């Protein structure tokens, strides 16, 4: 009887240890995280629609039904990346995520001068280089300094009603995500 009790106690203790180990290993070994899902859908530096509107199931979960969203993956070791989208929509917001899907920076259209989306993501080291001699064409851009290599850039845009759908779709589809030479 005492042996059985001993075995059960040991089992409970082991369950606690396994619980902690499994919990900490889930993020390391997950093949269902946002990066992996996007990698299956498209290449680096390619804007991909996240919402179901573009056809097929939504790539990444937790997109508000009244929002359209697009994302592109980038690798800052290749150089800095510039994201632009033309036109005016009621509300847009930006998030930059690192490889494991953590939000490292976010801003919305009230953070810009004219409400136009023009942003550059770069590492602190690249920022020092750019500061030395800021090119004319980058004067109005929002610089996002992110200490990461691989990352995901997500644009979310609000669709207040059906009449806005074409405009917001155009806004996202014409969005570009390109390596910026410097």
């Amino acid at each position, binding site marked *: 009887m005492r*042996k*059985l009790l*001993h*075995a*059960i106690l*040991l*089992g*409970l*203790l*082991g*369950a*606690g*240890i*396994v*619980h902690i*180990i*499994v*919990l*900490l290993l*889930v*993020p390391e070994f*997950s093949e*269902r*995280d*946002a990066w*992996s*899902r996007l990698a299956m859908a498209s290449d680096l530096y390619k804007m991909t629609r*996240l919402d179901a509107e573009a056809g097929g199931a*939504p790539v*990444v*979960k*937790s997109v*508000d*039904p*009244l*929002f359209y969203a697009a*994302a592109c993956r980038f690798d800052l070791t290749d150089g800095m990346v510039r994201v632009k989208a033309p036109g005016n929509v009621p*509300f847009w*917001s*930006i*998030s930059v*995520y690192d490889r*494991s*899907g*953590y*939000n*490292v*920076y*976010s*801003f*919305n259209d*009230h*953070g810009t001068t004219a409400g136009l989306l023009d942003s550059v993501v770069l590492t602190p080291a690249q920022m020092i280089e750019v500061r030395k001699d800021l090119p004319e064409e980058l004067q109005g851009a929002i610089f996002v300094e992110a200490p990461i290599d691989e990352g*995901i850039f*997500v644009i*979310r845009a*609000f669709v*207040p*009603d059906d009449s806005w759908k074409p405009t917001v779709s155009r806004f996202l589809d014409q969005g570009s995500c390109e390596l910026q030479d410097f």
Partner: protein
Amino acid sequence: MLKNALLTLLSLAMAIGGGGGSVWYALKTQDGVGAIRIGQWTAFPDIGTPAADPYSKARVAREGVLALGRAEGLSFIAERDSSGEQLMRQCAYTIEGGFPTARFWTLYAADQSLGVVQTGRPRLAALQSYQVLRQPDNSVIISVGSRAAPGNWLLTEGAGRMYFVLTFYDTPIASSTGLSDVTLPRILKVGCNA
């Protein structure tokens, strides 16, 4: 000898089964560590940030979530009405009260996977603050159900569990200090289709 082997096996089975199962259960429930509860509404302000707890991190990795940033907004999820009963798609509800400061908010009825409820009708099971009618004191009354209702109507249909997802965009409450004195609307059950 055989008894010892059996006891070892029991310990191992408990450790592996219990440990793995408890992680799976903890990740499945909406509640949990890092949650902020206001009335019936639950939010995870830290989710998707490096400061999040291990449970939120595991949930982000397992479900491929790209959580809203602080400058974007904050989402609240409700799974029970004010009497503590689970929200069901076959029931009618009233959501009433004031909403905290934000540029705008959206409200939608969600299924288990937190996607919007599919009603099979052209009308989306979602509302946003620019289209709602307000009371003289700026509060909002929303009728939820499968029958069209005057005022603000949130369409739901079908049967089974339901969640409400209320998201505030460009809001000061997303910063940690703003959450202390926020009140969110109440969810009252009106009746059910048996």
